[in-house]
């Protein structure tokens, strides 16, 4: 079970035991809570007094997830989209380019 890594070790069984112990502790702490609490107005989301729309209407679609992240890195993604042009000639050009760079670097490194 135990494997040695460079800095220490990794043992999944120890991890699982620790996980179970922590889960039990968390459950015990949770059990201290008041049982009679049933929710009410406070648990609902507050949308400036507007009624909450149904779950079908507010389900976030895939392309909207991480919208902020993608918007923040817009410059990078614009460049990446241009790089992944989907033209087969470009794929080969990348290959030739990488090989050419490796030629230059390798021979330069060996000469120096």
């Amino acid at each position, binding site marked *: 079970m135990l494997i040695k890594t460079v800095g220490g070790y990794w043992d999944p069984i120890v991890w699982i035991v620790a996980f179970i112990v922590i889960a039990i502790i968390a459950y015990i702490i949770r059990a201290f809570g008041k049982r009679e609490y049933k929710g009410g107005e406070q648990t609902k989301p507050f949308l400036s007094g507007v009624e909450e729309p149904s779950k079908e209407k507010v389900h976030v679609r895939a392309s909207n997830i991480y919208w902020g992240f993608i918007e923040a890195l817009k410059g990078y993604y614009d460049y*990446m*989209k241009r790089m*992944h*042009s*989907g*033209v*087969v*000639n470009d794929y*080969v*050009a990348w290959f*030739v380019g990488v090989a050419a760079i490796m030629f230059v670097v390798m021979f330069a490194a060996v000469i120096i």
Partner: protein
Amino acid sequence: MIYNLPFLTVVALIAIGMYAIIFKRNLIKIAVGITILESGVNLFLITLGYREGGVAPIFTNLPPGISPDQIPEKMVLPVPQALTLTSIVIGVAVLALILSFTINIYRKYGTLDAGKIRRLKE
């Protein structure tokens, strides 16, 4: 110089082939480019196997004037020729596959321009 001529041809063929693959947008021309590239590599292999005054390693079919004693020196190890034949056969298979893909792409996309065949991008 004259002995280097085949190698210069190899370089020229590979350069022409790569030029066609990188800069030509027509799928048929890309296929032609791959074939030229392949011919260059095949020519390279077959040139490596050339030995001056060599004979084919077939004992029963020796040319007149060569006694069996000289055989080991005169006979050529036929490995490069075997490699080239194999490579040609593989090349035909690849070419056939590329052309059949091209036919299907033309049916579905209505074009052979690689610049327009890019539904898969980003």
